């Protein structure tokens, strides 16, 4: 174990150097954990996007009883505590729970479900805001041209696609950074459900700081790279499409 003899007196630089060494050498354990993390979080964000964008758009454009209550609820759900979501999904998927027969508990599938629930309100609420602003601008023009219902909604969604990217990225940031939900429903099983955040928590408590730090650096690097890419795409789109 590379960090078992780690002495807290050693400089933190030592741990960082070891972490960078792990990354540079393409450490297999590290690679596996990173890939699983990406797989789980990207799947959850994809699902939450497919559900959240239409939901956000419908709440933005629709006028129905209880809309305000749903709005408040949706905004409140953006701050859902991951451990609570983990607990609820755990109860649903545990053997005695209503979805116990699916046998999903302690699998990446359970982690995807938990993260989807966490991320869905964020994507839906941010999408709702963007669509509502755009709708105010587009409504009369689209109605004048005869675009209605789903066609009008799709036109607006497509037109603000670069703003929606921010909503999706916020969701991805939330998914890849949370630890509570995946820890509870995944169980942090080595090689099966161990992702970056749960591994960092475990390795830190074990004292293997280089692996924990290495994972931390990869995690932050990925989030930075994604946001930088999204920023560049948005900038280019703004210049090109106005």
């Amino acid at each position, binding site marked *: 174990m590379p960090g078992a003899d780690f002495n807290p007196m050693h400089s933190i630089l030592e741990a960082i150097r070891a972490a960078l060494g792990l990354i540079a050498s393409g450490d297999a354990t590290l690679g596996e954990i990173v890939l699983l993390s990406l797989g789980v979080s990207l799947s959850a964000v994809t699902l939450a996007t497919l559900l959240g964008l239409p939901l956000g758009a419908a709440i933005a454009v629709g006028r129905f009883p209880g809309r305000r209550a749903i709005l408040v609820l949706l905004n409140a759900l953006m701050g859902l505590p991951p451990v609570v979501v983990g607990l609820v999904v755990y109860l649903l998927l545990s053997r005695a729970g209503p979805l116990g027969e699916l046998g999903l508990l302690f699998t990446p599938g359970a982690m995807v479900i938990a993260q989807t629930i966490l991320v869905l309100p964020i994507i839906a609420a941010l999408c709702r805001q963007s669509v509502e602003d755009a709708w105010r601008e*587009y409504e*009369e023009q689209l109605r*004048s041209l*005869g675009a209605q219902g789903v066609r009008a909604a799709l036109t607006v969604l497509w037109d603000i696609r670069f703003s929606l990217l921010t909503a999706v990225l916020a969701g991805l940031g939330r998914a890849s950074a949370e630890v509570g939900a995946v820890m509870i429903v995944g169980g942090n099983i080595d090689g099966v459900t161990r992702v970056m955040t749960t591994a960092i928590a475990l390795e830190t408590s074990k004292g293997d700081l280089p692996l924990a730090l290495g994972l931390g650096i990869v995690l932050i690097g990925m989030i930075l790279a994604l946001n930088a890419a999204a920023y560049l795409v948005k900038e280019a789109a703004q210049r090109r*499409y106005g």
Partner: protein
Amino acid sequence: MILPLKLEGVAYRGIIEPLTLELGAGPSTVILGANGAGKSVLMRLMHGLLVPNAGSIAWSGENPRRHQAMVFQHPVMLRRSALANVVYALKIAGVADARRAALVALEEVGLAHLAHRSARVLSGGEQQRLALARAWALHPEVLFLDEPTASLDPSATREIETLIRAFDAAGTKVVMATHNLGQARRLGDEVLFLHQGRLVERASVDQFFAKPASPEAAAFIKGELPWV
């Protein structure tokens, strides 16, 4: 033919007082009045964007929606090319060979060379010409124009007015809201003068400017604006 358009006792939230009028094909109609007189609201009621609280609005022919178009003071362009903006409108209207028709419309307004440029990066005047192309491509029987040059400079205004005259000459019924007296004179055949939501006067342009029948219209023409 969707004209004549008949409004019977149409009222809207205190902005438009009960109003009855008939618009027939032919002469272009200018809805004139100060800011807040109800010009835009009246036009939106006619175009079907607003529903009146009282009264009825009746077009004559089948599918009136398809045979009218509106150009707004600030037209909304979709984030796609100028050409794609016109194609979008044509496809909704069910026009076959939308791309070719759109190119013809762009040619008509002098924007063919900018067809593939993104619509939102065009200048204000170019965007307004594009909005006219998008409306004209539908070959509407009635074209509503809501202060189409209010935010444009004099040279862009001239270009837009030239195009409006061309649509008028091609047989489209032009209904335009404006508070610009010069523009009303240049483009209108008849004037509907609105004052505080009431239709105060309806007259030919020549008669309206030479001999306004109501004190409100006379004051408006003189620029006295007693209601400010």
